[in-house]
């Protein structure tokens, strides 16, 4: 099966190439460059609803891709794309983007909301979203400087049940008002 041998070539570095042409298997960079038309060069997004992938936690990318692929995480387009990659290629993509430089976004945030969010994050979110959202531990994504409209769309999907919210995260978000949750997103988006 095609997918399997592509994965294998990537894992073993063996060269299996047809029709006389010699070519090395797609490198992480080759794979990732194809994503950059949508997510930005090196994964730094310029479009406010498209997430930056640069400096994202490797596990968060890999988990997201696997969930897009299986359909466990709802998506508009990523599911169709993720199905084109083997697990080994998904690892390579995660490795590539997590190694890119942090991409600070220039975006407008509400100062009062940022302040409110800053006062709430420690008690509610910082256990998992470490260091003001700058550090992505395991499958917890980096949120610092992520695009606010993207974060808001994701939070809306969590709250409506379209995206399955992690149980322990829900324990924190459930009692909070929509305004406070939004304030938290303003805070994370503002972190440089």
């Amino acid at each position, binding site marked *: 099966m*095609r997918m399997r041998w*592509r994965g294998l070539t990537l894992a073993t570095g063996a060269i299996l190439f047809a029709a006389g042409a010699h*070519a090395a298997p797609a490198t992480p960079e080759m794979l990732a460059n194809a994503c*950059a*038309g949508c*997510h930005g060069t090196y994964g730094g997004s310029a479009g*406010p609803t498209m997430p930056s992938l640069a400096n994202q936690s490797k596990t968060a990318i890999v988990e997201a891709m696997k969930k897009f692929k299986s359909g466990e995480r709802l998506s*508009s*387009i990523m599911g169709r794309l993720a199905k084109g990659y083997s697990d080994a290629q998904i690892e390579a993509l995660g490795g590539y983007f997590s190694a890119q430089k942090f991409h600070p976004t220039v975006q407008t945030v509400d100062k009062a909301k940022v302040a409110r969010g800053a006062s709430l994050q420690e008690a509610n979110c910082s256990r998992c979203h470490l260091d003001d959202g700058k550090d992505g531990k395991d499958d917890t994504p980096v949120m610092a400087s992520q695009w606010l409209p993207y974060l808001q769309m994701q939070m809306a999907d969590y709250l409506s049940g379209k995206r399955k919210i992690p149980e322990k995260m829900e324990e924190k978000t459930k009692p909070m008002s929509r305004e406070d949750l939004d304030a938290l997103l303003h805070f994370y988006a503002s972190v440089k």
Partner: protein
Amino acid sequence: MTIDRRDFLRLLGAGAGAGALYGCATPGGAPAVGSSKELMPKTGRRVVVVGGGYGGTIAAKYIRMMDKSIEVVLIERNDHFVSCPFSNLYIGGIIKDLTPLTIRYDKLVANHGVKFVQAEVTAVDPAAKTVVTSQGTLKYDRLILSPGIDFRLGEVKGYDAAAMEIMPHAWKAGPQTVLLRKQLEAMKDGGTVVMSAPLAPYRCPPGPYERASMISFYLKHHKPKSKLILLDANPDVASKGPLFKKGWKDNYASIFQYMPAKKVTEVNASSRSVLIEGIDEVKGDVVNVIPPQRAGHIAVAAGLVGDDKNWCPVNATTFESTKHKDIHVIGDACIAGAMPKSGYSANSEAKVCATNVVALMNGKEPVELSGINTCYSYITDKEAISVAGVYAVKDGKIIGVPNSGGVSPGDYSQAKTEAIYAESWLRNILTEMST
């Protein structure tokens, strides 16, 4: 177009001094003459890229990102580029001007050291590894062509440069796009708009259907007594068929009429009419003719098109022409197997080509292609549908990776979300091209 002609005229008599060159003829038939003075004497290793659109900008930038020791000269006839993607939204009145669709080249120069030359490329000499431009000649080690498309005007009788000013194609974004929009605005309510689409393959398979949706959107909201007819040479909607048809039925049933297997072979500009197979005449108040296409003139003139005489066969890993060594063709002009002729494909192909041009110039093994295409089409101002694909090479051909890709869900459950993401798609891809 007018700029080109003026340039040619100014240089006429300067003499190309290049008998062995693959010459280029202008649409009007007059020989395009280049200047024979060497523009920038080549000192180190150099790649020349022709075409500052979806493919060329990315190839130029990524070569510089990957290897700063290679000089990259980007040649483009205009000092700016207007994106075809989203130009249908302008035609539909959703975007008010073309500024958000326009890029310039200054940041590619400043950020990556790409050298930009504004000139018309008039000939290529594959043996001497030289391109002739309206400003002078340039030598290259490798040449990358991303010239987009030109029209096969011989197949639509009467559709000449003058007819285009009356019945615009708007299939290259810019003045033509503005002209079509102005005509729609000037049309009386109750008028008829006629569109024609060519047989595939052509630039952007879903493009004519998105345009039909956007014109219908405009008519519905501003001129509801009007009608739109699409005469499609194809036997059926060539891309995202069921999705487009649902969108038309749900939104534009009383305005839009889709007519498959109707090939326009002739136009009559003075009566604003088109002829189907030279027989049935269809008249419109506004007529948008999308003619059949082939690789940009320069690729044809350089002897790079294949047996079909229209498109350029290339190696599926390096995008090197199978006709001439050291010349690579990407974007709409090339035959990229399963990858459609789209802006996103051109972007993805450019990166694969850049990677392998750098590898070849450094004596390294090329890297196998991994590509993506994604293309959004708007149905209304707030709903869009998409097609997506992931590509790899098998047996020397570019194929879609099995069990991946496809179109949006048929029930339009994601259409509002996709309309939002599509805006960021444009922002990111144009930012990639211009910074």
